[in-house]
């Protein structure tokens, strides 16, 4: 197989997600409406509390990260969710594709959508709240976004694994994972304010480190970016391995057929 054919196996999922999302009226809500609502509420909250400029940055970084994360994780999970809803899953798994084609193809589209949302949010937050996202140059922004997208991919993969393992309704449980991450990774507060047990969890979530790193540009403080990168790569690899095993198991138990009926 040449590289163009191989590339298209990745792009297939991006293509499918793109068309479905183009035809879906909720895309407007996902990309514009809800992101604006959460940005404006947090931004206005900072005005009400009369916090200083660095604290405004702290909170806006959290709000933007969460929004981008949510958009991108959806796109990764959609790769199987759409197939499950339309019961076409067996057409996908009879084709000569691997789990990584599906995940990275969908992630690619998630990155595009996430970046659009990010672009809108930084422009708006600059005008309304004077937030300068580029204070540390472009590189920190890219590293920060990479961390957010990696975390999104891990959550998306977890959703896919639970669908294949526990069937149709399991995605609800998996989405709650994203709520837990919101709680422990310090979206709106530093991790130190958490009870010690939750702090341990926070240290296991890569997003925590990427948030600390990016925020250290606005409020100088310690960060452990290397740990974050290591964790992100570790979870991604682990997620892909477990996803492969979930597919294998679904082929043995026949769940793959039942999801197509």
């Amino acid at each position, binding site marked *: 197989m040449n590289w163009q054919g191989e590339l298209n*196996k990745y792009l297939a999922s991006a293509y499918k997600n793109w068309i479905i999302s183009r035809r879906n009226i909720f895309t407007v809500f996902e990309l514009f409406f809800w992101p604006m609502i959460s940005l404006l509420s947090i931004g206005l909250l900072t005005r009400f509390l009369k916090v200083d400029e660095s604290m405004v940055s702290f909170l806006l970084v959290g709000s933007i990260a969460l929004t981008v994360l949510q958009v991108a994780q959806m796109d990764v999970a959609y790769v199987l969710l759409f197939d499950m809803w339309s*019961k076409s899953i067996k057409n996908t798994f009879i084709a*000569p594709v691997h789990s990584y084609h599906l995940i990275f193809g969908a992630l690619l589209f998630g990155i595009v959508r996430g970046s659009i949302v990010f672009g809108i949010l930084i422009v708006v937050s600059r005008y309304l709240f004077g937030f300068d996202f580029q204070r540390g140059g472009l590189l920190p922004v890219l590293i920060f976004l990479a961390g957010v997208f990696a975390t999104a991919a891990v959550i998306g993969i977890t959703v896919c694994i639970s669908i294949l393992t526990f069937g149709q309704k399991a995605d609800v449980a998996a989405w709650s994972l994203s709520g837990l991450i919101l709680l422990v990774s310090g979206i709106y507060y530093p991790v130190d304010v958490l009870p010690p047990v939750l702090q341990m969890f926070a240290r296991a979530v890569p997003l925590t480190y990427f948030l600390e790193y990016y925020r250290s540009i606005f409020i100088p403080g310690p960060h452990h970016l290397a740990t974050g990168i290591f964790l992100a790569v570790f979870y991604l690899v682990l997620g892909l391995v477990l996803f492969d095993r979930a597919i294998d198991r679904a082929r*043995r138990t026949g769940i793959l057929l039942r999801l197509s009926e």
Partner: protein
Amino acid sequence: MIEKSVEAKGICKRYKSFLGTGTTVLNNISLDIDVGEIFGLLGPNGSGKTTLISIFSTLIYPEQGSLSIMGLDARRDRGEIRKIINISTAKPNFPWSLTVRENLRHYGMLYGLYGSGLSRTVEDQIDAFELGDFRDLKFEDLSTGIKQRLSLAKSMLNHPRLLFLDEPTTGLDPDISIKIRALIRRIHEEENVAVVLSTHYMPEAEMLCDRIAFLRKGEVVALDTPQNLKNHLGLGERVVITYSGQADIGALGRLPGVLGLKSEIGRVEMVIDRSEDSVDRIVKLFQEAKILDINIKEPDLEDVFIELAR
């Protein structure tokens, strides 16, 4: 040169339930299928046809048995096998909001097609399956017959050398079924694609298949050509006579060549072996009566099916 499209030995499939008591869906299936034949799987509901086709197409895995598809080992070379096979099933499902063309493009990409080759293959399949008028309709807006044709078109995207068809005409009206059968023949003969299909519909198996395996409760209970199956089971022709007046039913039953007989007033139904001149002798026994109607029907697979499903 590969000679066998499928070589299966001792395939077993059990589905485990929560309580641990599994149900055996396939029990020790062994089959050799030649590349050059259209092979049919027949059997009542729940006999395991879909399960077997899913195992052959590496969609699901068996617990036991060895399987080789187009000369490739189904355990070791799954990736290679998936490149050269494809499947189309009854009541096919595709992403709802993608149009016919978009669906074909999407699956073409999954098979590693790209650039102008991808576009050409998609257009070729749209032409071959007469989908031109529907190319920009979303899947959810298609009728059953068009969905089925889209499914067949999708199954030809990678120019497979072995095609699995699970009840390709179920739920379609006779017109479209005939068209689809013709398409299957054409794919097999002109493009040299080996075909394994399952069906409920006996005339379809009789028309298309070179050999047929009957499945019952997950086992192969008979395997032969349609003609041999009919002969071996000793199924004769069915003669139905309606008459008025008197006829000696007792003598009718004793005639050589009459294999079975059922009678009611004014009507008699027999299974006969024609080689014994039996029709002539039967008619002679009705000299006292007036024959209102006589109907001779060749045995068909339906009869074989009923016989075997017992």
